[in-house]
């Protein structure tokens, strides 16, 4: 059970949230001008990294707001939480073997 710090409500159990999958996959601005391969990539392909991944989460049993977080898919360590529309610099260490876990 992850402990996720909602940017609006503070730290809450994972059970209050839903995960919306990989973040920063913008819908094509002009879908009609997007070719089949690029559109298929948008529809079906995800990076599925081993290491840090940015994800969309929604505090669905709380304030119902969507936000982004950065999580290690190896250790579940949450390294960053930021609001929609923000895009911070990448974290340096993508595959830290020993996690610190939890929230600061």
């Amino acid at each position, binding site marked *: *059970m992850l402990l996720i710090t909602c940017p609006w409500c503070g730290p809450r159990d994972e059970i209050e949230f839903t995960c919306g999958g990989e973040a920063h996959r913008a*819908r094509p601005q002009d879908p009609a001008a997007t070719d089949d391969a690029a*559109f298929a990539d*948008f529809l079906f392909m995800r990076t599925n990294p081993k290491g840090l991944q940015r994800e969309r989460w929604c505090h669905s049993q709380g304030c119902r707001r969507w936000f982004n977080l950065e999580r290690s898919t190896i250790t579940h360590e949450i390294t960053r939480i930021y609001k929609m529309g923000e895009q911070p610099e990448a974290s340096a260490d993508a595959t830290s073997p020993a996690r610190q876990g939890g929230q600061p």
Partner: protein
Amino acid sequence: MKQPFRTAQGGRIDRSRPVFFTFNGRQYAGHAGDTLASALLANGVHLVGRSFKYHRPRGILSAGCEEPSALVQLEKGGLTEPNMRAPVVELYDDLAATSQNAWPSVEHDIGAVNGLLSKLFVAGFYYKTFMSPKSFWMKVYEPFIRRAAGLGKAPTEGDLDIYDKMHAHCDVLVVGGGPAGLAAARAAAASGARVILIDEQNELGGALLSADELIDGNPALDWVAGIQAELLANPEVRILTRTTVTGYYDHNYLIAAQRRTDHLPRRAAGKTARQRLWKIRAARVVLATGAHERPLVFADNDRPGVMLAAAARTYANRYGALVGKKVVVFTNNDSAYEAAFDLKIAGAAIPAIVDLRPEAGQGLLERARNLGIPVIAQGAIVGVKGTKRVAGALVMRLAEAGEAFADTQPAELECDAIAMSGGWSPAVHLFSQSQGKLRFDDAKACFVPDVAAQHQASVGACNGSFELGACLAEGLDAGAAAAEAAGFPATAKLVAPVAQSRAFGTIKQTWVVPSLRPVGHGKAKHFIDFQNDVTAADVALAHREGYKHVEHLKRYTTMGMATDQGKTSNVNALGYLSTMLGTSIPEIGTTTFRAPYTPVTFGTLAGRDVGHLADPERHTPIHAWHVARGALFEDVGQWKRAWYYPRPGETMEAAVSRECRAVRESVGVLDASTLGKIDVQGQDAVTFLNLLYTSAFSKLEIGKARYALLCKEDGMVMDDGIVARVGPSRFYLTTTTGGAAKVLDWMEDYLQTEWPHLKVYLTSITEQWTVAQVAGPKARAVLEKLTDTKLDKESFPFMAVKDATVAGLKARIFRVSFTGELSFEVAVPAHQGKQLWEAIFAAGDEFGITPFGTEAMHVLRAEKGFIIVGQETDATVTPQDLGMGGMVSRLKPDFVGKRAYTRADTARVDRKQLVGLLTDEPQTVLPEGAQLVEVSDDPALTKGGTSPLPAPVPMIGHVTSSYWSPTLGRSIALALVKGGSARHGQVIMAPLTTGAVRCTITGPVFYDAEGKRANG
């Protein structure tokens, strides 16, 4: 009653209070403070059960939660519980326990014949012995194995007990109330941190309860009592005893099971929740979970009376129960010497300490000599006399090297118990569950914590620190450090108490003790996993057959897969495998530790979420009326929807036909309150809906509604409903009953993440409105009696929406139709719904107004070819596939799903498309889900049955909806068929097990194709 193996004095039992209990129907006496195991031992009972596979007589191996052998069935009926470990069952008045896996009795067990057939039951026997003929598996082999091999019996009656759950948060969670854990809790609490201390035993003290150590010059238990008093006086400390932390999950989230009344007589428990599940989030965790002693693997090491040395010591010191009058001690390390000494002092004879090593630790030989205990150095027990109880040990001395013996003949030592020690395994289960990495400590011959993965520390024996002084010092340091890390710096450094320290000494890694005949030869068995009956021979066989990876070995032999999860067996198996592979244990690695640490009852996990509280039920405001009218209900999501209303003696078919006829011929009413409803407001509402739905709303007038489809980005239909414009920038949407929450979430997702610049506000109003759907040719006549609003075709056309007063209530009327008839949906605030409903029925009485349920609704809509999302669609169906291409805007530059329709796969003409099906034989109703194929005269298809199997036949579609249509007097079906919209009039067939059904493809609309009735 006499307890022949009770010591003269001592122990933590209350000798003034006898406790009577029965085991296999026979009455015994023990004392308050006993466990079932200690009371049985005090009565000289060692034979407790029969083993899983071979039905070998089994006794008590341990004195703790790691017990693999002494499993009993407790109590009867709704109170019964299988696989209870006798050493952790606290004795209470009138406790009733029985042996498991034995028939007719544990003394005379017919299943013991399995022991004679043991060549059949070797490693992997499931895969070898019972392979052919194939058909025998389900009917012969599996039922036989299930009967012959097994543990306790699952209860067949409902659980009489109640359970509950608690959530807790703390700065420092200390798991384990032994010396290390107490020291940690004390140091953490001293700094002001909020501390939870959890221990699985009935009292704090851990291993100190079994020992005779001194702390600061006084008995260790005085120190325990002092710390306990100090912690109890601290309001920031919570102590949970009889509580086992069973799971360690992400971000320091731990689960503990508390046994609140299990130690009380069952009737006295009353209405107190029997067990409680604690869900704990801790800033820091200190693990002080101790260690488990390992058995030695020698010939017939499973005989009742063979047990762990520390357990024998615990029974003597803590419970005043001797495991035997003459106890041979067999060890590969120093710790068993303490057991030998204490047993001797408690009154048992010790014929010998048999030590695999050439030399014991410093001072031990002298103490043995002073107590008159002979020590056989470099000795081995090579055999055990006795079957249901140890009668003697066969001992030989080993040669300097290898597996050779120095003696030619074994010497027999008469004894009635053997206390063994194969070393210690730190209880690293929780550490490992938390994703911590282990390392093998070769000097101590055990896995110890290496790299922690969470905010946590391991202290004491679970960290490989077996000496008391080290336990206390580590505990204090870790407790203070944990509190400081959680924001509570220590005010003063606590001084570690002085404890007499016994060095851990050396250990000889002898994973299988040499015996007279090699492993796998002769009658003797060398058990590694006592609960799953896995022997050294099984591991050797698995190795010979090529199972060299530990995870493969585990699954092939089932080693470590019993309810004890191999607490006493895993390291021995790894060690033996490593000697066969000629590698080291670290190279082999260990298997994964999984939650729960010890078994947890389903009742505890379920808590109060059982019966009608298992899942919420949603009722409409009309629910009680439906119940009073005898409605049967259908679950739609969490909603209870009226399914149909049978009259006394009426079949479902008759009731549904009657309800359908009422709607087609006069008037019926459906409770449509469960449909999802979303209020959309804001200056960009039109833009937003245009981006989401496939159709355009810019031109939708206020007071008009439109049926519309929602698709996902891949173009597949996701939900459908009505979009009604009720203001310049305000819309009222409906969704399917089951899709309401999903659609709202999905809309919010787009609003917040793709188009946050749009000023739109979404509100769920599903439960704010009660909706009565009044349908049928007389619908207008009924409602005209209740409202002044003009309902004629010109004033209130099809798809119009108006605010009105109905039956004196402020209402909104939608002229929409899902039945194909003239139909008005009247919505009023939920609390007035019942009033509206009753007014409609009073007004409709003269027309024979009839309530209809979801089944009739399904039939009526299928006659009209209207789809139900999730029935006609399955996330692979586009609007075009449904023949609804006209609802997909070509003019809008963008909406969710639009781009997908030009992808090659969605643009194919041979996609499965919605069609109607009419069976050649009108009485035949196709089953929903039936597969559809081209017409064939292959008898394998046309004659039905399952044999002979037909050659592979391409499936061209399937039936999505199928009903008897009372209106048409024949069966109808909807189906998705490859290229179906171009195949109207063609014949295909549904091959059923009862024979093939031929049917003709038609359009999906069977009734009133022009739509005159709904428009009328």
